[in-house]
């Protein structure tokens, strides 16, 4: 079954928030990305789908500047030097990227300093925005997996980034909380942010996402505007 093709949108190099050209990433003899060329326009919510090993996480890590491409080019916010725009990118990985021994507020306070944010009010607001209590003193190690995921999202949006790269944000989160997080992402998209979500729970974003990007064997095989295949519509 063939998914519905995406409607033509702004795809010129100039208007793209992110563009990749012939992106290849190899780990030894294994190619995780095999010539990914794509353009993504700003202010949209992209859902990246694919089986395990399709290259979704590697693509996200490459866009975040954590994985150096073996070949090809990545342009983010008009530059190939990702270090210069890393303050405009928020990244949430599958692991929490949090210190287990510290509380939510202590974690965010530290990460805020890395972005030259010095007021606790911003940290508290971010924690509240994901449905957690900033006054909670217990260390992150004692959080449930769902709470960690939400705090991890709070850390990723702490610097008010233009681009959000989220790897499995809903994993191990209960349905109610996951829907709340999805709603929050839609709100952020509406405020002009470009959001890329790698997930196996695409149905949570079915009515919120602008585009579904399908990956297979290290390549983007199709881009659709709906999650449903054409024949099913």
């Amino acid at each position, binding site marked *: 079954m063939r998914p519905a093709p995406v409607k033509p949108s702004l795809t010129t190099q100039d208007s793209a928030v992110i563009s990749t050209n012939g992106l290849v990433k190899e780990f030894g003899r294994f190619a995780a990305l095999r010539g990914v060329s794509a353009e993504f326009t700003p202010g949209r919510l992209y859902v990246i789908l694919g089986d395990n090993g399709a290259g979704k996480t590697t693509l996200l890590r490459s866009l975040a500047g954590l994985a150096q491409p073996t070949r090809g080019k990545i342009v983010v916010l008009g530059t190939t030097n990702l270090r210069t725009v890393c*303050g405009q990118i928020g990244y949430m990985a599958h692991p929490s*990227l949090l*210190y*287990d021994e510290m509380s939510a507020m*202590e974690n965010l306070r530290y*990460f805020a300093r*890395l972005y030259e944010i010095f007021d606790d009010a911003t940290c508290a607001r971010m924690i509240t925005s994901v449905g957690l209590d900033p006054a909670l003193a217990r260390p992150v190690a004692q959080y449930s997996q769902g709470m960690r995921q939400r705090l991890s999202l709070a*850390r990723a949006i702490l610097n008010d980034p233009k681009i959000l790269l989220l790897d499995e944000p809903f994993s191990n989160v209960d349905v109610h909380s996951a829907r709340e997080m999805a709603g929050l992402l839609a709100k952020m998209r509406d405020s002009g942010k470009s959001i890329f979500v790698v997930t196996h729970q695409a149905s949570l974003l079915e009515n919120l996402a602008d585009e579904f990007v399908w990956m297979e064997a290290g390549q983007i095989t199709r881009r659709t505007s709906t999650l449903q295949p054409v024949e099913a519509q």
Partner: protein
Amino acid sequence: MSLFAVTRATLAKDLRLEWRSKDAINSMLFFALLMVVVFSFSFDPNAEESRRIAGGLVWVAFLFAAVVALNQTWARELRNQVLDAYRVSPAPANSLFMAKALGNFVFVVVLEALMTPLFIMFYQLRALGPAWQLIPVAALGTWALVVNGTFFAAISIRTRSREIMLPLLLFPFSIPALLAMVNATTAILTGELSARFWIVLLATYDVVFTIACLLLFESVLQAE
């Protein structure tokens, strides 16, 4: 981006984490204490012999104990892949390096402060030379150990056999510093020679390797 502000925040975070877990301090103390006891049973020197060998024993014990702490500080950053959060931020790489090196310096100084009285007691040490010179020797020697140790621990932490890799990388580079530390300490304890040359050598070593580590650390941090 302020190098000083990020260094201070990262150092404060590391000290807080160590205060709560006490992973590095406990491991170092236990290891160093074992070495003091084993050495004291292995050798039974008189006062004169003690002054001649104590410099070597003390610094070898601190070097081995420091390796334990050096691994711990980076291992903490790999749990939950927290290091990636630093790598995607605009914070300067050198802030992370300086904070880690300063944190390790504090840990090793605490270790030295606790273990030195034991060494003095077990080996009945008394300096015949200018004892105050032991302070710059200890400060410069400790920095020599931790600055290279922090750098090489950052390299080795992502390798499969990190416990072996760190000493393999660190010890050969530490030989000039270790030689200077041991000779300076022995010179001060015996009072036979001046320690000035060795102190200057240590200071030079510290400056050269601190600059080299700062220049190279960004490549280490961004390496996959």
